[in-house]
């Protein structure tokens, strides 16, 4: 079978598919379906300094070819994660990425420091969560704030640092450049597009948070476009995501410029999606005589 390994910011992944933060919890549940080493890595549920209850339900709605969610970063807090979840995760034979979110710069810094003293493989800076009141996406929507937070966390972080970008911006390539210039080792993109659904029978938003983050196949073309624009603007590797649900999407996202991929929503549709996507990628490589995924990354030939 084809060699599916990729390297991002010095870290080796045995497959390009990483479980997207928030869709895979801390891995326990999906380990009932398959060996987690089938995944290149796991980006854990977004964690905060202190335990968070998250938003009241309903937290999810369906949309044409997509979903909206507003979980609101429910998580047990960074200390619990380090003590209870990380040790088990590290035994699963896959790269473990901590996805962190803070209310303040200092909180991000504190978490990065705590995690730097563990054997976590990478840290993903979530400055793009649209579903929390303070912090969240606010850090991710201007070049200046992205520059500040990236620099600050970089100074408190000894691990490879991924900055995860929000698509709810006018010029994502500029934002990526800010992250790159201030110490990001990689970019991951895209987080969810903010959306809303209303139940016309009750006149109420379906999601209690009113708005939610859109993910799934519907957003795929936006993600491909943004990855392409960003790949043309930065030199650091990009972990592409947003709506990937089949192997063809994976190839397309790599062609647009991604070095590795994350998948989330497609696992709600089919928990075995990562296995099937990997098989499809391998077949495509074999059929086209492609030895390494790096040959595909960024290979799109624009007109």
């Amino acid at each position, binding site marked *: 079978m084809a060699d599916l390994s990729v390297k991002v910011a010095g870290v080796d992944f045995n497959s390009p598919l990483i479980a997207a933060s928030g869709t895979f919890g801390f891995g326990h*549940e999906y380990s009932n*379906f398959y060996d987690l080493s089938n995944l290149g890595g796991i980006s854990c549920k977004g964690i905060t300094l202190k335990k968070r209850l998250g938003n009241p339900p309903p937290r999810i709605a369906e949309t044409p070819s997509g979903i909206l*969610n507003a979980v609101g970063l429910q998580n047990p807090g960074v200390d619990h994660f380090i003590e209870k979840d990380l040790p088990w995760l590290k035994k699963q034979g896959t790269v473990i990425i901590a996805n962190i979110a803070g209310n303040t710069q200092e909180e991000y810094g504190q978490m990065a420091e705590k995690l730097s003293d563990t054997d976590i493989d990478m840290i993903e800076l979530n400055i793009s969560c649209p579903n929390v009141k303070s912090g969240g996406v606010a850090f991710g929507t201007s070049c200046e704030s992205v520059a500040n937070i990236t620099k600050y966390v970089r100074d408190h972080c000894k691990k490879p640092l991924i900055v995860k970008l929000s698509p709810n911006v006018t010029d994502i390539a500029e934002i990526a450049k800010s992250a790159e210039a201030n110490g990001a080792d990689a970019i991951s993109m895209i987080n969810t597009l903010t959306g809303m659904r209303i139940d016309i029978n009750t006149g109420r938003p379906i999601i209690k948070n009113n708005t939610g983050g859109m993910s799934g196949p519907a957003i795929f073309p936006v993600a491909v476009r943004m990855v392409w624009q960003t790949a043309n603007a930065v030199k650091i590797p990009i972990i592409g995501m947003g709506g990937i649900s089949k192997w063809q999407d994976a190839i397309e996202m790599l062609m647009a410029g991604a070095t590795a991929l994350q998948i989330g929503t497609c696992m709600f549709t089919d928990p075995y999606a990562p296995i099937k996507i990997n098989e499809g990628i391998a077949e495509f490589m074999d059929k086209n005589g492609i030895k390494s995924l790096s040959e595909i990354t960024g290979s799109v030939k624009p007109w």
Partner: protein
Amino acid sequence: MMSYDAQKFKVIKNEEIATGIFDMWVENSELSVLAKPGQFAHILVPGKVLRRPISICDADKSCLRLVYQVKGEGTEILSKVKVGEELDILAPLGNGFDINPEKRYCFIGGGIGVPPMLYASKQKEKPVVITGFRNKDLVILQSDFRKDNCELYLTTDDGSAGEKAFVTDVLKRKLDEIDEVCACGPMPMLRAISEICNENNVPCQVSLEERMGCGIGACLVCACEVKRNGTNDYVHVCKDGPVFDSKEVVF
């Protein structure tokens, strides 16, 4: 560990049994035997991103029975699936009812909450079963319960079938004869049942609904507020439930 593509079920029946309510039997002997009362099936409706959770109404060695009401687009598509087609279903999921062999039970179902009570009631000899519906057009599963030889009560809000009463009216009459209640149905009904049980010191298990993503506990979307050790917390319907101790639930 489940295996790749193990979740294929073959549809062997899919019929309308009351206005907008369908009775579907799906076959997969490997998984059906594992089903416990109160668990649910997470059904992939062709063309949809999210699966639909439906309670297991009954199960035998090879099949699951799922009784569902057409509500929106997903169940509409489901109602058109033909016998012989395959469905991708994750099942059985969640924790079912905890049924004690020593105790006397009352199983209460309201509306589309009635189906899971069938499989549950089969775990006991001649249990009390109370079923409530809005009106006669929505009455389902009566002959199944009767076949099962239980003490069956039928109520409707408008008296168009059975007794014109709420399930709680019947429950109050039967309190002396039972040790525990298992209930599924609309929230106001569950709240009322729960209050009666609490007042009378009768343990009560309720099966809850919440919109779901993964269905297995990973995405945390199906949150349900509970009070445990004096503090409120969110647990998850798909993994921690759908059945909860009614005392914990923040209605």
